[in-house]
């Protein structure tokens, strides 16, 4: 089999060029989606009959929680690819995904506690989902600080990569053990297999926001990756050309 495309795909220079032309689209579309989603969510959707307008926190809480888990998987898969095939670009992707995911985890926790105060009458409960989200934040922090602890960036890549792979096997175990331990949080409302149990106007807003947040996170991650490429490849002639412009 011809693997040339694969190696071309993993070349930092190629990535820098292609991402440069993709990035404005990512920014633009995510901005449009965020505006549309927020409009639909904050003004145009019905309110919950029990929770009133507080339910609108959901349009930020659910997308960030979703992104926090998704970017952990993205990070771990990228780290595994980088570790196994020794692809530099994949390590750069893993390193760039971590802060984005950590930020989303923090946002999900903060919006969650803001939501919890009026509804559950407490900022924080030791509930399964809240706890596993908190542990996810610790896993992200562990990854980032382990990577930074090494002076040699490539050793840091590989070390943090091992941690990310161990972590991704552990995430479901942690999740289920915590779930078994204690749960108060409501179950997932959106599922692929069942008819969603919410009003269509809410669902539209939520889906818009989920796509918007994912696209926005991808844009931030891509931006970070471009920085990472430039700083790691700074001795290469093409980078000098780019910077010299």
């Amino acid at each position: 089999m011809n693997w040339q495309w694969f190696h071309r795909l993993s070349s930092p220079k190629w990535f820098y060029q292609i991402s440069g032309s993709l990035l404005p689209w990512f920014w633009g579309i995510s901005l449009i989606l965020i505006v549309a989603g927020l409009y639909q969510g904050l003004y145009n959707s019905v309110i919950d009959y029990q929770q009133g307008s507080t339910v609108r926190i959901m349009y930020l809480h659910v997308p960030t929680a979703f992104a926090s888990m998704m970017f952990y998987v993205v990070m771990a898969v990228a780290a595994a690819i980088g570790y196994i095939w020794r692809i530099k670009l994949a390590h750069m992707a893993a390193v760039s995904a971590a802060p984005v995911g950590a930020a989303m985890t923090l946002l999900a926790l903060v919006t969650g506690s803001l939501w919890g105060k009026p509804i559950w009458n407490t900022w924080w409960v030791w509930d399964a989902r809240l706890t596993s989200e908190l542990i996810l934040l610790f896993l992200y922090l562990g990854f980032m600080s382990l990577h930074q602890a090494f002076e040699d960036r490539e050793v840091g890549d590989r070390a943090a990569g091992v941690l990310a792979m161990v972590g991704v096997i552990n995430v479901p175990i942690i999740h289920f053990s915590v779930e078994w331990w204690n749960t108060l949080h409501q179950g997932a409302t959106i599922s692929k297999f069942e008819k969603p149990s919410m009003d269509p106007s809410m669902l539209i807003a939520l889906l818009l926001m989920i796509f918007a947040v994912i696209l926005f996170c991808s844009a931030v991650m891509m931006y970070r990756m471009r920085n990472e490429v430039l700083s790691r490849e700074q001795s290469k002639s093409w980078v000098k050309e780019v910077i010299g412009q």
Partner: protein
Amino acid sequence: MLIKLLQRELLRHWRCRQDLINPLIFFILTVSLFPLAVTPDGQLLGQIGSGIIWVAALLAAMLSLESMYRDDYHDGTLELLLLQSGSSYTVVMAKIISHWLTTGLPLVIISPLLAVMMQISSEGITALMLTLLIGTPVLSLIGSVGMGLTVGLRQGGVLLSLLVLPLYIPILIFGASAVSAAAMGMDYSGQLAFMGAFLLGSISLVPLASVAAIRVSIR
């Protein structure tokens, strides 16, 4: 080969006995701080005691991880061992087993004493010993990955806790809940089965990650 490496490890531990005793003293001291801080009331201690003993065991196991790799790493022994033994898997396995024998097992043996001090019922004590017996090997196994990754770092200690403690959470949840279930006279075989599953799963998978981790640090 494994036996020889294990003998060497145990001899090494025996020759610096202070490292063997320190985690135990830490374990006892931490547990005995809680009645002072919370309450000497026997009924409350009986309820929270299992959790306290488990957390203290977790921390003691984590703090003793240093002795697994650090000395051997700094004097170059570890590099030679990995080069010469032919299989890094065996070296890592010997390290993990000896770590458990020198810290996990003493914790299990001394735990009934602490359980009595914390007013845990006799059913609870049996459960505590059983869960610690199954749980501490998992702590050594997972800890070896974290230690392998941080052995070359100067400020490794704090980082180690950040890497390892989140991964210890499932074992803590099941261990502590089995003991409190037993203390209330309920069946705790489910928790034990889960812990057994963790043990088998981590015996089969974790050494591979541990080898990868130590290879990153050695190079």
